[in-house]
Each structure stands twice: as C-alpha cells, then as structure tokens.
C-alpha cells in the first residue's frame, strides 16, 4: 500500500502542473539546480558533526557513559543493552542504524530488546544533525531551549517505546 503513495502523488503533481500550464521540464531543472549549492553549504556542518561522533565512538566514552548511566536508565525502564543506542541516536542516523543491526543480530529480531530498539529508532530523530543542518543557512547562534526540549522528548520517547513493547 505505502509503496503506491509516492508514485500517485508524483503523477497527480505532474498532471496538475501540466493542467496549470507549467513547463514541467524547465521548472524541475530550475529546482534541481539548487541542490548542489545547498549541499555545498551544509557539507561542513555534516562533516563536523560526523567527525565528533566518530571520535566519541572510537574513544569508548559512549560505552563508559552507558555503564555509568545504566542505573538511571534502568529505573526509567530502558534496558542496559539499549543505552548506547539511546545515547547515540541524537547524533547519527547511520551509526544508530548500524547499532540497531547489531542488536537485531545479537538478540534475535523478535526479542523484547530488539522490538524496543526498533520503536526507539522509529520514533526519534537525529536531533543534533537536524538542528545543525536546519540553522546552517541562518544567522542564528543562540537556540535557547530548543535542544534541551528535543532531548527531553527523545528520552520520553524511549521510555514510552520500552513501555509499549511490553504491552504489545
């Protein structure tokens, strides 16, 4: 079902544009042209955050943090095995998918731990990555409380995820 949503939207959009007498080819090219400068602009931000995450993982700080924070997370209902995933998720998309794959292989795809991991990943976003990329084109330096709120929500999401997996 979901595989049809995008194609249908595309057909509708192209036909509607034609109906509105828009030159589809020229317009599309005009828009697509903007992608290269956009990527050039955001590349340094992506690189900076990915370098920081790579160093963090290589240094072993994340596993140490996971160990230190396990009493807190356990109290909130998040299993020890998933702490590293919860900690890294705000920073990296590809990294957390790699971790999810490790969890799936290690504990079996249908275990409680694996289902929790899937829901945690499904309901969260790479907060720091999204934030840096989104403000990269503006003059904003002070985000005030945007990141703390996003992190609170992510933690809350992880707690709910583990709770829901117990019910379903």
């Amino acid at each position, binding site marked *: 079902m979901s595989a049809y949503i995008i194609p249908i939207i595309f057909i509708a*959009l192209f036909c509607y544009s034609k109906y509105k007498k*828009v030159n589809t080819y020229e317009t599309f090219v005009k828009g697509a042209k903007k992608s290269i400068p956009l*990527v050039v602009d955001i590349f340094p931000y992506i690189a900076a955050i990915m370098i*920081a995450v*790579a160093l963090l993982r290589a240094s072993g700080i994340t596993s140490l943090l996971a160990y230190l924070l396990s009493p807190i997370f356990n109290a909130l209902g998040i299993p020890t095995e998933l702490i590293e995933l919860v900690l890294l998720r705000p920073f990296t998309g590809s990294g957390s998918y790699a971790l999810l794959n490790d969890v*799936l292989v290690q504990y079996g795809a249908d275990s409680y731990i694996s289902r929790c991991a899937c829901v945690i990943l499904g309901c969260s976003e790479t907060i720091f990555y999204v934030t840096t990329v989104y403000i990269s084109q*503006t003059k904003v330096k002070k985000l005030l409380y*945007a990141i703390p709120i996003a992190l609170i929500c992510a933690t809350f999401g992880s707690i709910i995820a583990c709770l829901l997996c117990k019910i379903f």
Partner: protein
Amino acid sequence: MNKIWFIMIVGSICFLIWSDPSNILNVMIDASGEALSLAIELCAVYAVWLGVLELVEASGLGEKLAKLLHPLIKRIFKIDDAGAEKMIALNMSANMLGLGNAATPMGINAMKKLDDGSGTATPAMIMLIVINATSIQLLPSTVIGLRAAAGSASPSDIILPTIIATFCTCILGICLVKLCNKYFYKKLSKKYKHNKKEIKK
C-alpha cells in the same frame, strides 16, 4: 552547539590519547569521508525533491496545501508570513510521509524565512526545530527493512507502537515549546540581546 561540539571533540581526543593516539587522525578523516559520501547522496536526493518542490510551487499547490494546514500552523507557530507558512506546510507533509530527506530542504527554506537576523532563534524557529527533531513518522521503513533482513516473523508489528510513541513525543515537544515560549522566551532573548549590546560598547 559550539559548547557541545567542543566538549565532544576535546573529551574524545583526551580519551584517545590514552588508548590509541595513532588512530585519532584516521578516525577523523574517515568520518569526514563518510560525510562527503553522505553529502553526495543527499545531493542526489535533494535534486529530485527540490525539482518536485519547484513544481509544487509553480503549480500553486504549495499555497493550497498551506491553506489547508493554515489553521494548524497558525495555532502552533503563531506567524504571519505566507512564504514561511507554505514551506512549513510542505516540510510537515514530507515528514509525515516519512521522507525526512525531502523535508530537509523545505525546512531550511522555512528557517531562512523565519530568521529575523538577531542571532537568537525566534519562537517559531524553535518550534520548527523541535517538531522536526521529534518528527511524526508514519512509516519507519528503514527499521522495518532491517528487521525483516534479521529474520523477524512479522517485521511490521512495530508500526503501531512506533506511531503511538512518535505522536506522544511530538505532542510533548509542541506543548513544552509552547510553555517555554510563553514563560521563558522574553527573559532569555532579552538577556542575550543585552549581553550583545554590552560587548559592542
């Protein structure tokens, strides 16, 4: 962001000097290479979506969508900018369809329009960041794919809990931003602007 990045880099390097000093530069260059390949991938994705976006705008569908979502956006963001509203409408629609990468260029455009140049994020910008950071995702396709590949009996049975969890976090996010915008925004932004003036003097 400056502080967080600094702590991450310096902390990790201090740790690595103990355990594996020769590897530090390699790790950094590898990561930057990964970022480059991601950027190239994104360039392809954005080319498709920015092309489509241009069509959406040229055909006037953007305005229609914005009109449709107008009551919702007005409520959440409290803004009076038709251009920004349109971009936010497109950004939210793409997010709901699970097209995070398609939502990004629209989000960036919306951010540009919401920026007031003061250096401090406006309430609407904070809202947009939080909504995107807790994004409502109706179909976690990558996760389902990975789960199927790992041999799950019914890989899609995580959809329902995921949707419930994602709605909860998104609503919590919106409420928290609303509260903070109401009670803390003036104080905090004033404080910052005040500091800036002092520095100039």
